[in-house]
């Protein structure tokens, strides 16, 4: 994040170079998209999930650069790739929940880190979807900017809190696994496996 933030601020605030700042923003967005796609691909059961992930990443990269070439000369910041990203991940996460409903698992869903991570991103993306959708037309409106700060800040805080919950749950589960995985030093005596079939054969 720092790797993207420092050059972006440098280009935007010091050099006042909008095009390069936008380019770095696009790179950040693409990396975010790829990482999240990779994360959800790990947890989805869809057979063609890897193909779907690769195709969606390639399409998103192409779309982001097309948008960049269209927007770099424009005065306003383009939010369209952000909207597309929001919509894409909202759909992916809803599908993830659909799969969770289909496959009943013994572990309660609240006890899994991936559930809390998914809820965090679902709230983040669904909360920001309309914000990004209306940003291009209304960003110069001071009332909208106020709303933007409040909504974006709120959903980001909620997302971070939920991600923290996921980390805590993950740590708790790891601790439980370690506790269970400890060697039990009990002498079980000599063990002889049973013969496969000791029954007399039919005549």
């Amino acid at each position, binding site marked *: 994040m720092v790797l993207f933030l420092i050059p972006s601020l440098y280009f935007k605030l010091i050099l006042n170079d909008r095009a390069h700042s936008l380019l770095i923003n696009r790179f950040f967005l693409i990396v975010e998209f790829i990482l999240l796609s990779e994360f959800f691909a790990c947890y989805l059961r869809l057979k063609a999930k890897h193909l779907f992930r690769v195709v969606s990443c390639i399409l998103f990269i192409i779309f982001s650069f097309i948008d960049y070439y269209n927007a770099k000369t424009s005065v306003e910041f383009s939010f369209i790739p952000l909207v597309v990203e929001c919509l894409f991940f909202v759909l992916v996460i809803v599908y993830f929940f659909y799969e969770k409903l289909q496959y009943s698992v013994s572990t309660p869903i609240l006890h899994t880190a991936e559930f809390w991570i998914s809820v965090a991103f679902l*709230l983040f993306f669904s909360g920001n979807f309309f914000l990004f959708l209306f940003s291009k037309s209304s960003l110069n409106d001071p009332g*909208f900017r106020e709303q933007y700060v409040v909504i974006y800040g709120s959903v980001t805080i909620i997302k971070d809190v939920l991600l923290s919950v996921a980390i805590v749950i993950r740590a708790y589960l790891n601790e439980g696994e370690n506790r269970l995985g400890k060697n039990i030093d009990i002498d079980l005596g000599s063990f002889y496996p049973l013969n496969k*079939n000791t029954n007399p054969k039919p005549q």
Partner: protein
Amino acid sequence: MIFLQAATGASSGSNYIMLLGTLGMVSLTLGIVFFVIFHQRKVTRFNMELKKMEEDKQQILLNASIKFQEEERNRIAADLHDDVGPLLATARLYLNENIVNQEPAAQLQSIYSAKQIIDDAIQLIRNISHSMMPPTLKNFGLESAMSDLFQKINGSGSLNASVRFHDYRTRIKLEQELHIFRIIQELVNNIMKHSNAGFIHLTQNANATHSYFRLHHDGQGIIQTEFDRLNHTSAGLGLKNIASRVKVLNGRILFEIDPSHTYYKVTIEVPKESVY
């Protein structure tokens, strides 16, 4: 409140749409999340109930099996104690110490009587042994054992019993044969005791993977729902024993009535290669 304040400050109508849209999306998201949580809880609860029911059923079957074994042991113990024990004791009386002081003719008579009694005891022990493992089954297979059983029933004159094995060229494992024999024996016993049937007919068929044994009778029988119901109650020990034997065989049993309601059918399906 803070959203509304922000919205009040905004002059444009699109800000309201954006605000409402955001609230709608967040509400929808929360709705989906809560639905997933509650649905999973419901499914988990349902699975747990199903598991408990299965465990209860296993417990009933296990209890029935233990009870059946105990009854069998009691029967054998009673046979040995009441029949064989007195016979051997009588034989011992004939062969007591005084036999040497007796006349040769009386000695011979005592020895002959003791021999008769020992023969009876041997016959009794043989009968007990045969009821535990029929020698025909062990030596000649299921087809012969079933024919033997049905011949005995036929010989009693109370019931017309017949057997027809269509495809039993190779014998299956002895343990499987014994289970099938016991199942059919129990079914036949039930038919004779409760159904007031005029005939019983056993047929055997097979395909590449399974063997099928079907009993027909014209008495008062039961259908599958009744069999399942009896299996879940504490009554019907013999039926539970049948169910546990079928389970051991990895097979299935089906109780049916003919559409014309003239006879009942019991079909046992057993895989040819049962996994032990």
